[in-house]
């Protein structure tokens, strides 16, 4: 029975794919003139390096006919661009915790979910907040809490799903500590291992306050020194205590360096300056691709998770807006999903992505099974040899153990002041 449904979905998706390839005009019923005009359209997208990848833009040109210009920025710069230069982009590829800060500024327009063909197949994590009906919602800025607004012109986040998305979810993952298994010399099982004196001068934490504070909170909770009501929304006292602890560790010489961009974390790890640190999954893959052992270590307390999506700039209208919706529908139709899944991220619509992946790839990345074939990155470079198992296991095992989401706190201003204190200490 289940397999029949899957097959039907598969056929449907395949048909959609063919439709797109045949020309968007045929699929959406727009007049031919539209199909010609669309070739002249350029959509400007900015975002962080995770999804700002050129092969996606090239595929857009091939499948949809229009041009997608991508600008890649670091997390902070992306937030700034979204907020301060709303006319410089058409599509914002940003994280949900940034949306919490940016959407109320009125620079994005709500997205009509009725225009999204695969809306009902989006992972429920982004709709209800629950991965499975009985999961517990993690702390922090969970995407579904800032995923909807109350209406077409509303700037107010809706308490429950509406027909108006702030962003369409596209990419997410569960982050944890990266380690050099050859150098740590013992099993790493908990967040508090980051501050184990055994790794003095060889640990690192990321210096992006809104994310770093969460890693710090995971460590403090793991140490048992602080019990948070909500790590993603700390009180001033909790912030004081967390930063106090961090300063203590820093003064004791625990940290070798703090990193701010993806490549810094890769360099710290490959050079052996650092052997345990906060890390992002592609950074782990990058270290491994240099032939250096690096594990994305699952930890007892769970993961710190993040999610990103595409938002529509307020100024988009007419043909460009149509093209943007077309692009978003294409984004969820499977090719990009498979592309992202193959790099260790997760796509928002799993069913469609599955159609674009080999069964062995799907089993490795999503089901946590040993690789039946050599696993390659989208560009063809070898990522994992046959027989390897993904760190942390299957999709449900990883995303099911999210302890908190990247977040923006009510006491954000205060937290940053304190974070600056930690860096200056």
């Amino acid at each position, binding site marked *: 029975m289940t397999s029949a449904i899957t097959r039907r979905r598969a056929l449907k998706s395949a048909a959609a794919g063919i439709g797109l390839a045949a020309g968007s005009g045929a699929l959406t019923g727009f007049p031919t003139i539209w199909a010609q005009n669309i070739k002249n359209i350029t959509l400007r997208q900015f975002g962080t390096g995770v999804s700002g990848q050129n092969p996606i833009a090239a595929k857009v040109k091939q499948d949809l006919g229009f041009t997608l210009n991508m600008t890649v920025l670091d997390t*902070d*710069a992306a*937030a*700034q661009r979204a*907020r301060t230069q709303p006319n410089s982009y058409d599509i914002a590829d940003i994280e949900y915790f940034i949306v*919490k*800060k940016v959407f*109320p*500024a009125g620079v994005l327009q709500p997205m009509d979910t009725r225009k999204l063909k695969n809306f009902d197949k989006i992972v429920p994590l982004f709709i209800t907040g629950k991965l499975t009906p009985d999961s517990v919602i993690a702390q922090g800025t969970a995407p579904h809490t800032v995923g909807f607004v109350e209406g077409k012109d509303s*700037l107010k986040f809706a308490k429950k799903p509406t027909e108006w998305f702030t962003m369409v979810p596209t990419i997410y993952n569960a982050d944890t500590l990266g380690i050099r298994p050859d150098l740590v010399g013992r099993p790493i099982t908990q967040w508090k291992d980051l501050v184990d004196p055994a790794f003095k*001068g060889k640990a690192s934490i990321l*210096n*992006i*306050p*809104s994310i770093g504070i969460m890693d710090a909170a995971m460590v403090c909770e793991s140490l048992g020194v602080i019990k948070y009501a909500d790590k993603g929304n700390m009180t001033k006292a909790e912030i004081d205590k967390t930063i106090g602890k961090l300063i203590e560790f*820093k003064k004791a010489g625990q*940290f*070798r*360096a*703090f*990193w*701010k961009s993806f490549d810094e974390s890769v*360099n710290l790890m490959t*050079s*052996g*300056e650092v052997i345990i640190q906060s890390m992002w999954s592609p950074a782990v893959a990058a270290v491994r691709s240099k032939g250096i052992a690096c594990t994305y270590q699952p930890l007892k307390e769970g993961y710190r998770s993040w999610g990103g999506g595409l938002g529509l700039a307020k100024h988009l209208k007419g043909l460009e807006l149509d093209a943007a919706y077309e692009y978003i529908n294409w984004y969820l139709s499977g090719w990009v999903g498979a592309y992202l899944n193959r790099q260790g991220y997760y796509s928002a619509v799993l069913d469609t992505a599955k159609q674009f992946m080999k069964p062995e790839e799907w089993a490795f990345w999503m089901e946590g099974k040993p690789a039946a074939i050599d696993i390659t990155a989208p560009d063809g470079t070898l990522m994992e040899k046959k027989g390897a198992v993904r760190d942390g296991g299957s999709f449900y095992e990883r995303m099911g153990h999210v302890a908190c989401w990247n977040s*923006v706190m009510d006491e*954000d*201003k205060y937290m*940053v*002041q304190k*974070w*600056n*204190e930690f*860096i*200056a*200490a």
Partner: protein
Amino acid sequence: MSPSQNSDARRISLRAFAPHLLALPLWAVLGVFLAVPILMIVMVSFLDYDDAGLIYTFVLDNYRDQLGSAVLWRTYFHTIQFAVLVWALTLSIGFTVAYFLAFHVRTQLWQMVLFQLCAIPFLTSNIIRMISWIPTLGRNGLLNQALAASGVIDKPLEWLLFSDFAIVLAFVHLYTLFMVVPIFNTMMRIDRSLIEAARDAGAGFWDVLRNVIIPLSLPGIAIGTIFVVTLVMGDFVTVRMMGGGQSASVGLMMSNSIGLLQYPTAAAQAMVLLITVLLMVAAILRVVDIRKEL
């Protein structure tokens, strides 16, 4: 009134007005690209803000919050420490190099060749020159490997990289040329007969240096000092890269605030820094009259 008188009067008024006209483009450029942005920063520094953006009310919180915080004072102290240390090092290196070029190298051709040589590293980007220190100084870097291989150390030196040492080293490397150029320039203008006269009067090497060359090089030293001090005070990239993000500077503090969209705080920090640096420059100009140079 004769026609000639009339045209004379017009010529005079035009002549009086001409300098202003000539200065107009500069005024316009400075106005648009310097004065207006600074005025905007001043304005923003007095605004309140929340998640959704700036709130247009006049508040002093941004200044009160930071002037009242121990972190700011500590960070300023730290940054000024860097500035003083880097200044002392670049000055001694820069002065020596300039002295060598100006007084030891005899032919003008070689002076120019060697001077250009000093500038060659500056054809690459600042960041590249800085980053190349990282594989040199790292735990498993070239220097540690060499020292370990020669048996000088048995454990890698950790303080070489991601430390205040690394920061100062990079600053000195990056900014010494800013000292060399103006000092060399003033030294080249020193009338050689003054030195001969001093020698004839019985002055030794140190007397000549102390009583003739240093006083006459002061304008160059002052200009170099202004360059180095302002560059170090405002820096955030070097401190971040070489300090491994563990060290703070005023610029880094500001960049953190900007990163978190706390523009009014960053603007207030910028104003405090601007005023501090202007005071430092004013102090330097009080000691040395650099107009002599110009």
